[in-house]
């Protein structure tokens, strides 16, 4: 076995260890099903909708918020237009005029999503503050589920929802639908470990008081939702996951847009990790410092290494085959399929890779069960075919960007 292959085995070991750890956590504490119970109290809540040129979707987003199963006098929707140049303002203003008691519209100079969120936070004294990206739509029970969770455990300071892909049609959206379902599983498991690492833009909720303790959102390398989670862990503030609070979000529909989005996320992770490096392997921060951060960083490196290893071998193989064909004069031939077990690849690396794939599949199926997501064969096929090809692109770009301390792009 050569040294390069040993690195891949190390990457597989890490992936397996992480998946096994999450599965143990699942069997230790299985997520409860949604119940018809109502909260004892409905806290005053403001949902901030930061938006920049979201004309096509902002209307649907507000509609879904208006349809929330929550007392209207306890819920206010605050649209913060971060200097849109399209019809976002016109659409949002129309809702504010139609529902003056429920929808507020504010316009501000463009400054980035974090400034829009801070703008909203500074203008509300509601007990709960939520945010919802203007390309996302909520299930009518989502807010009640979040409030119930916070009511059951008063130490919870912030809550993340179960994010699903909104009506996936293209293969790349279906791929992300599986990925998000996997995300539902591991976010719930991170919750079991008290180690949630990001409070995503679509429908995360905060107790208003935490901003007085830890301060407002920061630019944080264009990943303010990740940084605030890091900061909450730093201050020992609890983040939980409401797996029964469903939110549907639009996802990138082209490889280019997806790579751009994920480069921002991944680069944000690397750069925030640098800013919060003192939390790494620090027992004071529990599973967040001891497991989630180190495994996240190692996983990043391992995935890049494995992709590089595979790419290097593939290029070598192609060069060898082509130069071999040119030198020998032997015409190209399709490999003849042999129906004989003898020729089936049973190498240790393949067996382990398949084990990782099977465990990923189990995790996705559990995620599906946790959040009642519907996925078909095409979703799974697109995930297993595409994800491994596309993910290395954003990992490499993010690593490069972080290395040069460049700022990642939003869109």
């Amino acid at each position: 076995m050569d040294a390069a292959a040993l690195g891949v085995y190390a990457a597989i070991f890490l992936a397996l260890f992480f998946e096994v750890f999450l599965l143990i956590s699942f069997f230790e504490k299985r997520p409860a099903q949604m119940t018809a119970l109502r909260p004892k109290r409905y806290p005053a809540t403001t949902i901030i909708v930061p938006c920049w040129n979201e004309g096509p979707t902002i209307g649907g987003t507000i509609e879904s918020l208006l349809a929330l199963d929550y007392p209207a006098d306890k819920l206010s929707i605050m649209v913060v237009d971060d200097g849109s140049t399209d019809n976002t303002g016109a659409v949002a203003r129309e809702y504010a005029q139609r529902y003056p008691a429920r929808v507020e519209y504010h316009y501000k100079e463009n400054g980035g999503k974090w400034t829009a969120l801070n703008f909203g936070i500074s203008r509300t004294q509601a007990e709960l503050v939520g945010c919802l990206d203007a390309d996302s739509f909520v299930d009518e029970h989502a807010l009640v589920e979040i409030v119930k969770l916070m009511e059951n455990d008063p130490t919870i300071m912030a809550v993340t929802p179960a994010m699903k892909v909104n009506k996936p049609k293209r293969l790349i959206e279906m791929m992300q639908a599986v990925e998000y379902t996997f995300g539902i599983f591991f976010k719930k498991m991170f919750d079991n470990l008290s180690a949630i690492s990001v409070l995503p833009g679509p429908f995360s909720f905060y107790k208003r008081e935490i901003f007085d303790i830890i301060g407002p959102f920061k630019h944080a390398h264009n990943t303010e939702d990740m940084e605030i989670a890091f900061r909450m862990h730093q201050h020992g503030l609890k983040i939980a996951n409401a797996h029964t609070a469903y939110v549907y979000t639009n996802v990138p529909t082209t490889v280019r847009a997806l790579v751009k989005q994920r480069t921002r996320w991944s680069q944000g992770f690397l750069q925030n990790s640098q800013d919060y490096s003192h939390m790494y392997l620090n027992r004071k921060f529990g599973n967040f410092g001891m497991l989630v951060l180190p495994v996240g960083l190692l996983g990043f490196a391992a995935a890049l290494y494995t992709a590089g290893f595979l790419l290097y071998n593939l290029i070598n193989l192609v060069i060898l085959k082509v130069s071999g064909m040119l030198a020998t004069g032997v015409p190209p031939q399709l490999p003849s399929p042999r129906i004989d077990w003898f020729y089936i690849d049973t190498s240790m690396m393949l067996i382990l890779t398949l084990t990782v794939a099977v465990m990923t599949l189990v995790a996705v199926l559990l995620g599906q069960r946790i959040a009642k997501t519907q996925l078909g064969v095409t979703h799974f096929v697109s995930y297993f075919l595409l994800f491994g090809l596309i993910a290395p692109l954003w990992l490499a770009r993010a690593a490069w960007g972080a290395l040069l301390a460049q700022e990642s792009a939003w869109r």
Partner: protein
Amino acid sequence: MAWQKYLLAFIITAAIFGTAFYLTNRLDAKRLADIRTTQEEISIDILSTETQFELLGNLDCAAISANPVLSDELNNLASRLSVAEQNLGADNPEVTRLKKQYSLLEIKDYLLMKQISEKCPKVKPVFILYFYSNDGTCEDCGRQGDVLTYLRATYPTLRVYSFDYNLELGALETLVSLNQINGYRLPAMVIGNRAPVYGFKNLNDMEKLVPELETLATSTQATTTDDR
């Protein structure tokens, strides 16, 4: 933080690795057993033909010219040995032992076919003895193997006997010295009873070196075997 959980996850992961290692080894051992069985069957077949030859002093030439003796079985064995060598490494003692047995079977088949061709005028097999090395000193051996594999797949009656020059086997060393093969100039080929040819020969060169190929029947159903 539950350290037990970290430990348990580590133990389970290590156990998965252990199981994969065990499975791979078991399947490789099964492959070697499969090769041994095939070799035993071929050995019995060769012995049977030899015995028949000695008993009768002659053979059913018509049957032999229609069905080349053991060609398919030997090709199949070569292909399996190649897989085993790839999985377990060329320096695996068990693989080396099986390669020695295979080389012996090839030599026996070669000698038998020579005898048959003398007795049966209609049987005119075309032989290529191919000497290679996979110890890293012969850069062109892999490519030469590709050419011969292709030729053998295209002309099923072409008999290519490939030998690892570095196998320490008395019979092979005799074959090498009888054909005066220079081990420093590999790859080397002996075509028919002609003088050895050294160095890499591509498909065009081979067609010129083996004009008898034109008389051999071609096959569209290619069977891939490996000749290093």
